[in-house]
């Protein structure tokens, strides 16, 4: 074979490969995946993707596998908040941490402007207090329509509109208002050292700054973390904003251990909770696929309490999906019930963005491999 024709064949292979990669990226994009980058080598394909409609990366990986329908060895690199979270290889989704080369390769391809859809998310916002004598069920229900826009690698803005449905819980008026709006920065400082910084308006009438740090190796059972916040009270009456100076500092250290069976995790946390309440809290968390159920017990200066929490995605998920816009229900609705309705014991505020500990529990490869 002449030198020229062998070159031609190489070029042809390259063109065909690129076309194939492009086709796969498009298939994944159409199925709701974002920031899709397909890298082809001789016998392996590396695929980066972010998938916001599903709560658990396990289901995203399964879905991606079905859509891509690839016979070669696939190296999956799922992203979370625009950051690669780990490498899951082959049919059995074997985990390994990212190599520097892969990080660099993602950095070079990361495209914030064109890599994401404009996703609108419908999410209920429900608070309740049980056991008041005059009115046993005091509830406040709102519906939030919000979106997240990526501004810089790892940095995003979440904002939306809140529509009140009913309120028998407090004095707040039924005005349509801005939904919890905040800037969120997520980064893996060094391998397995995750940091999440959030600033703005949160749920539970708190605003301010929130810092979460967690050392979690995604193939290990132990993880340790810190949750800290500097917040104040706010509410939004019609046409204005009422804020009190932030003066509430919370600082909670925690240790989580994943039991070797049943996707059960035990978490012990302690420190200063919201409203300067010193104490400890123990959690037992069970992960069922996309649903998470937890039981807790807390002892603080203010008293003691026990309760449970559930987190699940809302049906049906995707409602409308176009090339550039998507409307869906939330991938995570979390609700916590606490037994003690008299004293304020071991309270935390809800950010509106899932907490680091809950997300990393989903990303843990022992969980992903348990299916």
């Amino acid at each position, binding site marked *: 074979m002449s030198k020229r024709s062998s070159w031609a064949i190489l070029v042809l292979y390259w063109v065909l490969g690129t076309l194939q990669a492009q086709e796969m990226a498009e298939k994944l994009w159409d199925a709701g995946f974002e920031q899709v980058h397909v890298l082809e080598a001789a016998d392996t394909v590396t695929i980066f993707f972010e998938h916001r409609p599903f709560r658990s990366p396990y289901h995203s990986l399964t879905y991606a596998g*079905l859509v891509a329908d690839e016979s070669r060895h696939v190296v999956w690199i799922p992203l979370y908040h625009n950051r690669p979270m780990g490498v899951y290889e082959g049919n059995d989704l074997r985990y390994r941490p990212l190599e520097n080369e892969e990080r660099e390769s993602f950095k070079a391809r990361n495209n914030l402007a064109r890599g994401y859809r404009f996703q609108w998310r419908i999410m209920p916002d429900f608070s309740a207090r049980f056991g008041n004598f005059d009115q046993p069920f005091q509830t406040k229900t709102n519906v939030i329509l919000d979106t997240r826009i990526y501004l810089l690698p790892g940095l995003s803005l979440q904002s939306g509109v809140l529509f009140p449905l009913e309120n028998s819980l407090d004095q707040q008026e039924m005005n349509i208002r801005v939904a919890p709006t905040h800037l969120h920065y997520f980064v893996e400082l060094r391998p397995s050292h995750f940091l999440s910084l959030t600033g703005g308006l949160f749920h539970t009438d708190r605003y301010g700054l929130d810092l979460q740090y967690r050392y979690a190796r995604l193939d290990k059972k132990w993880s340790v973390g810190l949750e800290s916040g500097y917040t104040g009270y706010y509410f939004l009456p019609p046409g204005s904003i009422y804020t009190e100076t932030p003066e509430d500092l919370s600082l909670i250290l925690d240790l989580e251990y994943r039991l070797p069976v049943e996707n059960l995790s035990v978490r012990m946390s302690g420190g200063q909770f919201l409203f300067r309440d010193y104490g400890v809290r123990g959690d037992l968390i069970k992960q069922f696929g996309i649903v998470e159920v937890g039981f807790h017990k807390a002892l603080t200066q203010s008293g003691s309490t026990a309760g449970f929490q559930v987190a699940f995605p809302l049906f049906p998920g995707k409602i409308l999906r176009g090339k550039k816009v998507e409307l869906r229900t939330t991938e995570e609705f979390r609700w916590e019930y606490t037994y003690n309705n008299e004293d304020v014991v071991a309270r935390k505020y809800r950010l509106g963005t899932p907490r680091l500990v809950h997300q990393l529990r989903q990303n843990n490869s022992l969980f992903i491999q348990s299916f």
Partner: protein
Amino acid sequence: MLCGGIFMKQFVYFVLIFFLWVGVELPASGQVNVVGKPGHVLTPSAQWDTLRQVGVSFGILPESYSINNFMGRQVGPEHIYGVRVPLTAFLEVNINFTRKPELADRIGVGDRHIDVRIHLLKERRLLPSVVLVLTPPEGVSTYLSQDLLVATKNIVLGGAGTLRISGGYSSPYFYRTSKTKIGSYKTITRKTSVGNNYLNGFFGSLQWQPWEFLGVMVEHDSQKINTGMFLQWKERIYIQGNLIDNKEFGITSSVRFPLDFAPFELRRYVKKK
């Protein structure tokens, strides 16, 4: 009793649907007692849900036989909501909320209760299934407390259906916390001393399920004899009418569903393929 009225209508509707339903093959295991535990009318059984699904239940007890009857004062029927969550292959957590509709303006939501159910022994060819129920010493009003040991054996009668025999013992004492103006105190109290007659000693039951969709039962709940009849659909939805003390009518209903499902979009995609 407005709620009860609507419920009766739903009940009749369900009965009609169930009688139109034919043919389910698996043996029933999602049936629960009035507090949402696998069981009969008021008594629990040692039946274990091997599919490990989450159960939600709603039961009504007539006034004179309600569990928290406020020391014999007549305060209307009792509604009991229950949730059952399987945590491991041998451990379940049960949560209850009670409500006295006629007393709601005074007490709001009634007693809230949590207990754990531990599977000590699996049912074998000759051995029964054995379950231990323990209530953590916690809470303000602990009338639903139950600390008990129960055994259940299923006997397949071939063409004549299944016979389920259960028996057990429940502690007549409970851990009581009371809040008074002077302060709160914690004691171990005899259930009868506060007018609580729920599971107070030995209990036993006999249940016969001639067809998949229907079962009848009779039990001694340590105080009195109760009978009941249930109808079920695909082991998912249960509706049961009870005669408490063979005098007054009560209802138990429950649904059961798995929690380890995949997201809807993924399920639909798999189905299409």
